[in-house]
């Protein structure tokens, strides 16, 4: 009951024109960046566009926006208050809130990254299909992971400023490959895309680290907002 109510809560908040506009802007940015990278040089254009504009900038910003919308710009506790006050469990509501948001972000990340590969490689490239397939699962995973992390971080701060600090830390600390980069999704997404490794983790290790840290953020957030 509470999870279902949380899903409805998020669906209602996300089904606004602003969500569509944000998605369109993010997609335009990714495709524009992909065209620029291809114009700069076809060799390595897909890698640069995916690790830079697509997964490096557009995806975190879009996930931040989606979570802020799902939380109505508030703290996680206040975000579920309209239903939690009537006796529904806050933790279940939070999980419900995360589900449609994560699905939307994952779908966007998968679709946009496939389009970026298509633009940078061109239809005739033999690497198009394998790269698109790889991007598909990395997009699905990283979109959901970013949303889980941002929702968990929304439990911090009176107005959920924790998600903003997570975004900043992800951009600043996640860009490195030291121990400091370990908790942030950006570092592991880069590893999955074939970029520099954090603490020399394998791609499987990066996948587990990405899912583990993001779910840890979500778990800590639900713990903090109590039942």
């Amino acid at each position: 009951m509470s999870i279902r109510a949380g899903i409805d809560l998020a669906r209602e908040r996300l089904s606004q024109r602003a969500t569509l506009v944000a998605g369109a802007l993010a997609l335009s940015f990714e495709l524009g960046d992909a065209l620029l990278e291809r114009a700069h040089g076809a060799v390595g254009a897909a890698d640069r566009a995916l690790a830079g504009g697509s997964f490096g900038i557009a995806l975190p910003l879009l996930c931040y926006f989606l979570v802020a919308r799902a939380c109505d710009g508030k703290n996680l506790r206040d975000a579920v208050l309209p239903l939690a006050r009537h006796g529904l469990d806050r933790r279940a509501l939070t999980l419900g809130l995360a589900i449609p948001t994560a699905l939307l972000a994952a779908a966007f990340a998968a679709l946009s990254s496939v389009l970026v590969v298509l633009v940078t490689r061109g239809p005739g490239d033999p690497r198009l299909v394998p790269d698109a397939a790889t991007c598909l699962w990395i997009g699905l995973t990283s979109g959901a992971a970013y949303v889980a992390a941002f929702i968990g971080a929304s439990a911090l701060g009176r107005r959920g400023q924790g998600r903003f600090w997570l975004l900043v830390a992800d951009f600043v600390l996640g860009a490195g490959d030291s121990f400091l980069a370990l908790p942030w999704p950006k570092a592991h997404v880069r590893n999955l895309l074939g970029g520099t490794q954090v603490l020399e983790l394998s791609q499987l290790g990066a996948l587990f680290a990405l899912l583990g840290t993001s779910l840890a953020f979500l778990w800590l957030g639900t713990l903090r907002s109590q039942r």
Partner: protein
Amino acid sequence: MRAVLQGAALAQLRSAELELEAGRYVVLSSEADALSSLISITAGRERPRHGLVLLDGVAPASTPGARRKIAALFAEEALPPAPTVAASVARALAARGADPGSARALLSDAGLAPLADLPERLLGPREARSTALALALAHDSAELFALHEPLATLLASSFVLAALARHTARGALVLSTTTSAADANALGGHWLCIELGRLRALAATPRLGAGPWQQVLVETSDRRKLSQLLHESPLGLSTELGTTPNALKVTGPALDVTVRELALLARQHDLEIQRIEAAVPPVEALLAARAGFARGAYEASRTAALGTTAAASPALPPAPEQRIQVGLESPFPPETP
């Protein structure tokens, strides 16, 4: 329902010490933020920064089952998001376990039918609070009503007061907070007061002293006789003539005590009470009362230091059925020579 607050603090509310049983209580204070915080922690919206809030032994902030028994109205309201207000109310009713189909009837009963088809996100703060109050008042299984400024919404005061009377009669605990003395008078029940962020309601706390904020205007067939009877009363009531031939202004230790005594004397001596109402105090009187609180504390400590009790005001006998009393001293304590 038994509500216990032990040193509960949040934001401007520095400490709340309360033990409330079923009944009606109104907290009057000029400190709106503290009042809002009191409702937030009592209704389980937020955890207190310090101290404890327990409803029947459990913390509402971390117990969904306890929140299900609470109907609340906060200073800032947010309804469940939905395409229309009626759909939003239906969603809240479903969350509560009530019939979502009764949403339109609920709004209609509260006089909010024109809002039903409006988009929920277009509601202003006052309209959102009104809808939330309508939802709260329709919660027939709630055991605690925690309401911030319940008479400052679009709902008719008569509707709100009638609903509160109904819930009080079935054994619910109604805790209202307000910054308006007139609203506090209308809400009735036991008065509590927040002073400098502190709320303390213990059996030994003195009543709000006599003054213009505790005046009752009464019209009777024989005001001379009633005045004489009141002067003979052991409760220390004083009277003065009103502006009309039948009117009498009665000043006592607390509104409920004065009115009860008036009703008792009128019945015993077969006097007709034609009209009775609480006098709304002017702002200056309330400010004087606030000043008197500090003055009273000073005088009490000075008296204790001098080792004499002769100068102290005589204590009024508390009404036996009133457990919670107002925490203000007399605003005009006698001057110590």
